[in-house]
């Protein structure tokens, strides 16, 4: 237990020492917020159902953070650790395998949460973002979404033979997800075909779920999203458990 806590702390410091990971998780969503916020402001408009650009975008940008930690960070770090023999070295100690993998989940979850809090604080302070949901419900939705993306990240790390392949696969999932899911550009402006395609992307369901919970929708309105995200979580965990290799 002492070992797990220390490992999480060290992994957290290591995360902050990778400038690109810290940028995409902590700074990039905030940059998007300021960019689109300065163009469109946050005036309520019928186009967004009586809400402003920032009100709708903030929960969507949270999904981008999950893409960064789930599709990129965790898959690249875990596959690099395997490739270089870091996992082997850890396995030669009394540390349990669950602790080794759990520390990665913990660090990336906390980083996702940190990126989210920074983003929400920016949106509130600068654009007076409106929030009509329940914090507890949003937190639960956030947690399910994050875990399901981290599970997909583990899946990538499990099937990729090298860290190069893992980072290519990660990017291959990351970019379509952030651009075609409504996370970066609101789905409201998508043509019909693109809107249907976006349904196959897991991030679309994160965006829908968080935007719904943001305005206080009941869970019942988001059964599809919950099922899809729980499905990704289960598939990710099951496939990783079967396919994961330590070396």
């Amino acid at each position, binding site marked *: 237990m*002492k070992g797990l806590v220390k490992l999480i702390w*060290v992994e957290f410091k*290591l995360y902050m020492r990778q400038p690109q990971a810290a940028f995409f998780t902590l700074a990039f969503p905030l940059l998007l917020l300021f960019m689109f916020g300065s163009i469109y402001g946050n005036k309520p408009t019928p186009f967004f159902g009586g809400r402003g650009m920032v009100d709708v975008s903030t929960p969507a940008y949270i999904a981008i953070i999950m893409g960064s930690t789930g599709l990129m960070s965790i898959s690249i770090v875990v596959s690099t650790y395997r490739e*270089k023999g870091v996992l082997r*070295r850890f396995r030669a100690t009394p540390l349990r395998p669950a602790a080794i993998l759990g520390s990665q989940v913990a660090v990336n979850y906390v980083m996702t949460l940190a990126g989210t809090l920074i983003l929400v604080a920016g949106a509130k302070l600068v654009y007076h973002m409106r929030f009509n949901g329940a914090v507890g419900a949003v937190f639960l939705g956030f947690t399910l979404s994050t875990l399901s993306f981290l599970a997909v990240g583990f899946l990538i790390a499990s099937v990729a033979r090298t860290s190069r392949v893992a980072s290519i696969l990660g990017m291959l999932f990351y970019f379509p997800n952030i651009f075609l899911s409504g996370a970066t550009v609101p789905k409201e402006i998508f043509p019909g075909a693109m809107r249907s395609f976006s349904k196959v992307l897991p991030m679309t369901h994160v965006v829908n779920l968080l935007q719904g919970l943001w305005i206080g929708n009941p869970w019942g309105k988001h059964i599809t999203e919950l099922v899809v995200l729980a499905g990704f979580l289960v598939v990710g965990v099951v496939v990783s458990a079967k396919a994961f290799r330590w070396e």
Partner: protein
Amino acid sequence: MTAAITVNDLRKTYGPLTAVDGVGFEVGPGEIFGMVGPNGAGKTTTIECLEGMRSPDAGDIRILGLDPRRDGYELRERIGVQLQQSSLPDDIKVWEALDLFASYYRKPAPWEPLLDELGIADKREARFSKLSGGQKQRLFIALALVNDPEVVFLDELTTGLDPHARRAMWKLVRAIRDRGKTVFLTTHYMEEAEHLCNRVLIIDRGRIVALDTPEKLVANLKAETRIVFTAAEPDYDPAPLRAVAGVTRVDVAGDKVTVTGRGDRLVILVVNALDAQQARFRDLRTEQPSLDDVFMAMTGDEMKPDGGAK
């Protein structure tokens, strides 16, 4: 005293390849025990089975009375491991790695003194990726000692190090033994095994070909001693040396003379003969058979300094 390590009839195959084929031995407490052999001889497979990193197909292993497969976690509390292929995160600092690994154990040793003992105290704040090969090895040894283990496993500790760093490593290994620990190491440097180990196991193609102290291995070879000198006169006549008891042959190449023979008194007899002959000579030295010769005799292969048999 009971053995620190007991291995009986260890076997491991990878598909059609038999890596370890019925290996068995005992290592006593406080011993430096070396396993030598060319690359692919089965050294790493054996040591990884002992460490519990790999499961054997057959055979019985006891480390400190524990079975590495069944009591793996308990065993890892009490052994120290330096792996041949392993690494740490690039950006972890030396002190963080030690502090982290210490936290994995029930009874960690204080790690601050290890920095000094291993000569990496000035690298305390350095990141792993900025360390030299020798410094990384030192850090890995420190990590292997951080739980104050009873048995330390070192897999190809000095491969890739320069001769200076290699000698420094030998000193470290002796210091580990002097702290009362049992050391099990693998190497493909015969010289290393000869200088460092109390006993040496020579393995080739998964089988033990010899197991004894380096001195006895060399003595049992009954190899001949060679005496080499440079004759000071251009027309040196080697005939009197051929008559010396024990001498089997004398070769002259220019002013280099090589006398080959057997017997404990060979050197004295040859020098006396030279003196009686009033021959002037310089640079006289003797060449004793080494573990290299033992290895060649046992396996028919030659150990190459870069590892691997030719």
